[in-house]
């Protein structure tokens, strides 16, 4: 980090914090920010007037327990190869995880891209290949493009469980949940896709500043300085710190692919519950690619992990150390809840970096 830049941002943060005369609560919505804040040791350099609260932007963490259980059921079906991003592997189910299923003989493979999952299906036509599609607007367009290609090229042995989520409705749910957030550091790469203008309606109506922020510690410091100054001026609205990547308008081609393959529906979030208009599912024209239908996966009752307070952590209601399991029964080596699994989970980041 360039020390003179960091010092300038910290000076602005201290000044605006002093002028606020109270503790200002800022939510970093995105799990990649949570990780960057921990890695950069930012909590240690920020003044006591700034409180950073982790938000619901860790895809693995917010995947509902019901969806996790459905993924585990899918992995147990003989003849099915499950392709997943690595983050999902150790997410605990009630009695298992994808990693444990793999140890018991299930064919679970980690992929870097949904393209790799489709390629696996092409290469192994005798095998049913199912992709676990988790993630926000950054990830959903690529998955959408892959689903459209699978349909166009009639790759009959490919399917997916789609649990993609949209970030704006979740930010609204956080505000409704009484977490007293004064400003949002919004996810830089989601913002590349949806554009900074997408936050204007929410920011204006709720009178809250949103700053699309990059992922290096120096970016986060500048984003915090911008938010504190906007809060001091009483300005709601959508602003850009991550100017080298985020534009006012998003990536229309990516958004277009997403809307061609998926429809917006209600989404079920761990700890938050159902948020209207926050989920993506395959459109009817692509329903033959829906793994839940192809393999008749059952509708499960809602289920939660006992004692785990990940839900409250994700809503910004409590900090990780306030959970009685944190660091005692629940550690990265032996996680009880998903927020301790992913490197982007707020519990894992707090455990590792303090």
């Amino acid at each position, binding site marked *: 980090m360039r020390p003179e830049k960091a010092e300038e941002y910290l000076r602005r943060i201290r000044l605006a914090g002093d002028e606020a005369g109270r503790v200002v609560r800022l939510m970093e919505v995105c799990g990649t920010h949570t990780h960057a804040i921990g890695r950069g040791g930012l909590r240690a350099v920020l003044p006591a007037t700034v409180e950073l609260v982790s938000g619901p932007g860790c895809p693995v963490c917010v995947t509902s327990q019901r969806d996790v259980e459905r993924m585990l059921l899918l992995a147990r079906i003989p003849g099915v190869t499950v392709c997943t991003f690595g983050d999902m592997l150790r997410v605990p189910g009630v009695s298992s995880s994808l990693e444990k299923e793999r140890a018991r003989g299930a064919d679970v493979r980690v992929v870097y891209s949904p393209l790799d999952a489709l390629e696996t299906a092409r290469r192994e036509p005798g095998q049913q290949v199912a992709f676990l599609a988790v993630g926000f607007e950054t990830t959903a367009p*690529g998955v959408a493009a892959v689903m459209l290609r699978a349909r166009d090229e009639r790759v009959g042995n490919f399917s997916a469980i789609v649990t993609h989520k949209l970030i704006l409705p979740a930010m609204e749910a956080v505000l409704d949940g009484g977490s007293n957030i004064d400003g949002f550091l919004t996810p830089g790469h989601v913002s590349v896709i949806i554009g900074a203008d997408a936050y204007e309606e929410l920011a204006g109506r709720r009178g809250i500043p949103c700053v699309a922020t990059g992922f290096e510690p120096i970016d986060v410091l500048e984003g915090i300085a911008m938010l504190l100054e906007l809060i001091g001026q009483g300005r709601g609205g959508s602003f850009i710190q991550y100017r080298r990547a985020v534009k006012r308008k998003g990536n229309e081609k990516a958004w277009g692919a997403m809307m061609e393959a998926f429809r917006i529906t209600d989404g079920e979030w761990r700890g938050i519950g159902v948020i209207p208009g926050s989920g993506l599912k395959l459109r009817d024209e692509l329903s033959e690619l829906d793994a839940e239908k192809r393999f008749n996966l059952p509708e499960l009752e809602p289920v939660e992990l006992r004692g785990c307070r990940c839900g409250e952590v994700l809503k910004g209601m409590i900090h990780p150390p306030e959970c009685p399991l944190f660091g005692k029964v629940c550690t990265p080596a032996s996680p009880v809840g998903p927020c301790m699994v992913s490197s982007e989970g707020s519990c894992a980041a707090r455990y590792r970096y303090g």
Partner: protein
Amino acid sequence: MCLAVPARIIEASGNRGRMELEGNTREVDLSFIDNPQVGDWILVHAGFAIEKLDPAEAAETLRIFEEMRGGADASGEG
């Protein structure tokens, strides 16, 4: 999971291409960006280019990545 990294296009043919990323080359899907050309800098997430970067912007991001790699691990997959 929402990490995206800067890379340079070294081959482009329609929507398919190859990129140079941290000294390695691998395939990249170019269908979300306009008029991709060899030499262009792109921001890549999970095998897809999600934005073109102008060279100065890319250099800035790469410089930050280099600094970061100097003192820390490069965690954050996806």
